[in-house]
């Protein structure tokens, strides 16, 4: 499987053959949600994130 670097943390994100535009992937290292911006070449960008509540 092809892989590319997470734009957020440089972790290796695996890319399926059947990548589609706007698909949301998840970085295995930092768990960021990543949007497929273009498929050829594959470019990922941080998906617009709903602020997630986390404590306090």
């Amino acid at each position, binding site marked *: 499987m092809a892989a590319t670097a997470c734009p957020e943390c440089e972790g290796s994100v695996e890319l399926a053959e059947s990548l589609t535009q706007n698909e949301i992937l998840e970085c295995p290292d930092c768990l960021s949600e990543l949007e497929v911006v273009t498929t050829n070449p594959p470019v990922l960008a941080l998906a617009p994130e709903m602020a997630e*509540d*986390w*404590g*306090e």
Partner: protein
Amino acid sequence: MTTVGIIGAAGYVGGELLRLLLHHPDVRVTGAYSASLRGKRVDGAHPNLRGHTALSFTDPDDRGAHDVVFLAVPHGRAVEHVRALAGTSTCVVDLTADFRLRDPGAHQRYYGEVPPADDLRAAFTPGLPELYRDALRTADRISVPGCMATAGVLALRPLAAAGLVEPGVVIDAKIGSSGSGSSATTTNLHAERSGAMRVFAPHRHRHEAEVAQETGLDVRMTATGVEAVRGAQVLCHASGKPGLAEADVRRAYRDAYADEPFVRVVAQRRGLYRLPEPKILAGTNYCDVGFSVEEDSGRVLAVAALDNLVKGAAGNAVQCLNIRLGRPEDTGMRFAGLHPV
């Protein structure tokens, strides 16, 4: 009798205000407001008040007139209530973060949003009796500080005021689950939150801005959720000015808090409870502060503990009210706390 209304009375801070005010000899609670529980009995949401009140919640849209209004609503929602009361002489005691920071730039930076308008903000006195007692005697707009901010300020202020430490201070704060209020989220699900040591703010916890504001120090605050329902503790790691002696530090604390009804200096050489710990403070309005100095290296550790819902919120608000009313500051708050617990 002073009449009092509580907006956000169904929440945890609101419930604590009710606990303290329902038995306050100079006050009558004439409005407990909640939208979601309007018409329901107050002791349904706050079962500890069974037998202590027959009140029911009222919709905030039907707010009546009160001498004093407490705002125990979510962050960002106090502004609308303050605005609605603008121009009246109702005393407003706000427990949210909306009016805590004097510097609008800091508010913007820490909260990521436009601060309330200058004229609204300017009217507020910080609700911290240990620093603003005189102003509070006549204040009509009071902004109670954050729970870990209160702990941090009371821990560090004597050192800062006496110039005993270098400006850079690292604060490591711990807090129980009631600090995030009463709405059910996965974050606070019992099976997830139990036994947690969750670093939810690795940097720049918002209360950091308040500690900096009141001490002038260059503070960095990290916050961790730990296994507890109530209670907050701060560990403030500082470096003493050259030649610092423990005796100077002890004197600074003693002088600062000698006459304070709700600050106890706890720095003992023996026993199990040598430095401040929140568990024995649950339900009380104390902020215990303590310190340890390592003279060789000049390292100073300042520690403070409190109940986030009492001295960290509702109790501090009631202490401010007592000052405003010219009553003894501990009126309605003489509970000593429990041990063992």
